[in-house]
């Protein structure tokens, strides 16, 4: 049962936007990019709660979470998402996409976010970042 793009198991990504910010153009574009890169996107869209995302990752056995952020709340929302996933025992990388000011990048990465993609990232960069983040987790030894 091989697939078009790769013989690796198909990557499944949960895409969501947390909180009350109502722009969905960015997240829709990312969904298309990942689909066109051969991934399966579980599209949750706008106004999602941490709980919804955790539920989706569990039930969909997702390999990664993509969060779209277009307001200043990334410093609070993204780390909380990382914690909520860890608390549920889910080893999945969280990738943040959107506008993150330079000075926030380091502190955000320190909270356990796997990668940050700015608005200028190319389709290939977006897809490769997700692949790399998933490979890093899949490749690591099982944790006790």
């Amino acid at each position, binding site marked *: *049962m091989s*697939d078009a793009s790769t013989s690796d198991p198909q990557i499944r990504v949960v895409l969501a936007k947390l909180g009350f910010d109502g722009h969905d153009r960015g997240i829709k574009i990312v969904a298309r990019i990942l689909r066109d*890169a051969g991934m*399966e*996107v579980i*599209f949750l869209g706008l106004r999602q709660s941490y709980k919804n995302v955790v539920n989706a990752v569990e039930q969909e*056995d997702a390999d990664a979470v993509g969060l779209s952020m277009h307001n200043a709340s990334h410093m609070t929302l993204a780390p909380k998402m990382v914690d909520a996933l860890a608390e549920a*025992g889910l080893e999945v990388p969280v990738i943040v996409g959107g506008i993150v000011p330079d000075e926030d990048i380091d502190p955000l990465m320190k909270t356990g976010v796997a990668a940050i993609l700015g608005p200028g990232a190319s389709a290939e960069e977006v897809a490769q970042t997700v692949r790399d983040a998933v490979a890093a987790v899949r490749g690591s030894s*099982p944790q006790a």
Partner: protein
Amino acid sequence: MSLRGLPPADIFDKALGGERRALGRLITFVERDAAEAETVAELAHERAGNAHVIGITGAPGSGKSTLTGQLVKLLGEAGKRAAVLAVDPSSPLTGGAILGDRVRMEDVASPDTFIRSMATRGHQGGLSLAVPGVVRLLDATGYDPIVIETVGVGQVEVDIAGTADTTVVVATPGMGDSVQANKAGLLELADLFVVNKADRPGAKDVRRDLDLMLDLSHVSGQDQRTGMRPEIIMTTALSGEGAPEMWDAIERHRTAITANGQLEARRVNRDIDEVRNRLMADLESRVDLMLAGQSLAGVAEVLDAVAARSLSPTAAATQLAARIKDL
């Protein structure tokens, strides 16, 4: 605690204990037809056979997911642990997919509902193997009922919904007449019709068309498969109006087929179909190997003769069929 590296039987125990992450992983095994899948099928089969399986199909955008969301909301309120398997097409070009059914359900679904999205992954044969496997798992781990959403285009998708205990076909106003639905083979499949988007003009006309069509199939004797005339329910999935009536009709159907023995017959057929689909998949890959000249000697000569027009494809197939037992 990671699931990686755990034997499938241990993951199965966790899933039985209600760990949804474990169930999620087992579904992945089945979906990939991974090495673990056979163990999983074995463990699941002896515990399955309890859940009521409901197929929901209809044209793209007819409101299947919204309707399913309303249904599992009701079921949750009634204290049932429902599961949904939502199948969407993969892009034939890239193998990727955007699975957008879940988002229409999760806000209304009770926390006990298990929702899994599944892409068709190009190989249609694979889908007809994976779906029954996933349903068996959900059944074995205590979910009841199980709703399968498939889009009503493509034979395999239609077939999958048709193997359910109760198949619901969703129609809507403004989506072509019932002749079109008939072409897709959807109409003969229905145990129950739902006319969704009843808030829109033309819904009553759809109902009348369906009624007329059912009259005709009665006259022609086409409804003998079930011996029952499918009910028609009007719904507005956006508001939830009609959803309780839809559930009542589904239950009436189940009660009826339980009483007349059809439920049991359908389930036996479903299992036989699965065995058959497995065999066909196996046979198909053997035939592919044979035609690629990788298993039996002399196959290339037969194919060359066809190319040289000295042997017809029919005769070639007859010759090769005689050797299938050697594959």
